[in-house]
């Protein structure tokens, strides 16, 4: 290939990659603009105050009610429950793999856990209906086990691979020098893990948790299958709940085009978008706080 065509090729690929880069940005911007545009249409019909604080979600009733507070509380409840289970399990497993496990055990465990992420959410939901639901119903003496607890447990399982993989990488990446320094003054593995390794790996561990939260908030199919989908204000983990994602997924297929109900689903999606954004910002804040002690 001569010099001139090499130069041309270089320019061609520069343009191609620039185009793909901007295309992705345009797609994101477009999605955001579409959400905002349709939400505005909704808020022309319904007062924002009624939307955010209304206790009743009944868009198909004779006089429709668009109160999404039960949906926000449901999503928060399920996500919070999932994290309550997934964070200790995930960080514990990550620590075990990174610090305690022998190389052979680690070589089996890590790929196995990563494979857990490949199970389709509908299969997890199916397991929730078939195994978890009767179990919960028996234990809590309920007619069925399709409730927030069921959703939280399944979401925890789904968030675990992400949390474990990312947290393990972070813990593994803590410089050996820190570990040696800690062992060198007589610390055992538990003390080293708790007081040196986890704090040093904190930015990565928090990132892992935030990715898990993002996964849990955004997950749709599993929660749709196992939480019962009653759009009522939940009073505890044993209540049936309808999350924001499930609401959109269930109702979007049947809603008449460009009605208030249709726009309402966009408004829910916008709220969801800001919730995940908020989770990311909080994560970023903590990551920066821990970076202070690290060498530049």
């Amino acid at each position, binding site marked *: 290939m001569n010099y001139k065509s090499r130069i041309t090729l270089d320019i061609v690929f520069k343009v191609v990659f620039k185009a793909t880069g901007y295309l992705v940005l345009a797609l994101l911007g477009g999605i955001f603009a579409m959400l905002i545009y349709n939400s505005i249409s909704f808020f022309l019909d319904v007062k924002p105050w009624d939307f955010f604080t209304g206790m009743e979600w009944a868009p198909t009733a004779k006089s429709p009610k668009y109160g999404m507070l039960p949906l926000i509380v449901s999503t928060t409840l399920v996500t919070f429950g999932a994290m309550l289970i997934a964070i200790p399990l995930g960080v514990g497993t990550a620590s075990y793999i990174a610090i305690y496990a022998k190389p052979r055990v680690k070589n089996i465990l890590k790929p196995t856990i990563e494979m857990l992420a490949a199970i389709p959410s509908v299969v997890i939901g199916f397991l929730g209906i078939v195994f978890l639901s009767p179990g919960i119903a028996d234990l809590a003496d309920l007619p069925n086990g399709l409730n927030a607890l069921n959703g939280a447990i399944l979401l925890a399982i789904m968030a675990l691979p992400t949390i474990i993989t990312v947290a393990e990488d972070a813990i593994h990446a803590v410089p050996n020098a820190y570990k040696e320094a800690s062992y*060198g003054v007589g610390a055992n593995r538990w003390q080293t893990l708790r007081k040196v390794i986890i704090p040093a790996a904190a930015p990565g561990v928090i990132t892992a948790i935030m990715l898990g939260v993002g996964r849990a908030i955004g997950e749709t199919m599993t929660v749709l299958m196992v939480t019962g989908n009653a759009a009522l204000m939940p009073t505890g983990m044993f209540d049936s709940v309808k999350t924001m994602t499930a609401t959109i997924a269930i109702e979007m297929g049947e809603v008449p085009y460009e009605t208030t109900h249709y726009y309402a689903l966009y408004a829910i999606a916008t709220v969801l978008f800001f919730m995940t954004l908020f989770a990311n910002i909080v994560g970023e804040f903590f990551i920066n706080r821990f970076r*202070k*002690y*690290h060498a530049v």
Partner: protein
Amino acid sequence: MKTKLSAQNLNISFGTKQVLKNVNVSFNENEITALIGPSGCGKSTLLRSFNRMHDLSPDANINGTIMLDDLNIYSKNIPVTEIRKRIGMVFQKANPFPKSIQENITYGLKINNLPHGKDVIEKALQEAYLWDEVKNDLKMPATRLSGGQQQRLCIARAVALRPEVILMDEPCSALDPVSTLKIEELIKHLKKKYTIAIVTHNMQQAQRVADKTIFMYLGEVMEEGPTDQIFNNPKNEITTNYINGYFG
């Protein structure tokens, strides 16, 4: 001179690779002993075996005896954490914890359930010639200190535990000449209270600080003796060639 620390018939291998071959050495109380030799001769491996750092490598295989006074440090009924409290270590690259200066000192004290008040912190930093430079910034992240200060902090962290032996693995190799000089002065001052074993690549450093020098080559101890004798009147031909810089 009383022997504080010694190795008898010590063999260490990693997997199939034998790194130390039948090593017999001793370190006298309140003396500085330098371990010298070309890269890969096993001097760091030997040093690290004295506070059982190889326990962390699953493929390390250690045979032989290492005695601290009358105690075999590899005997089953003695916890490794107890050994590491009595035999402190300073590493090649300064490795303060990503915590404040003060927490770097108190960390080891808390772990070992020792008092960790202001006076203890001050004493450790004084002993490491660091107090005057940091006394007003004890809450500052240790990573903001200069390289030489960080290494002195690591020494302070080690002496805070009142160990009996301090192992130093090329503590000055990453430092400038001024910081190196400060650390060398510090080491000479520390030998009044502690027994010190120092691995060094720098033969001038060994001559400046060490009472006794051990020359190692390919995993074996070639020669050991008073520093003057090793450098001015070596008995072994390989030692002669090494200290004259014919290889290294």
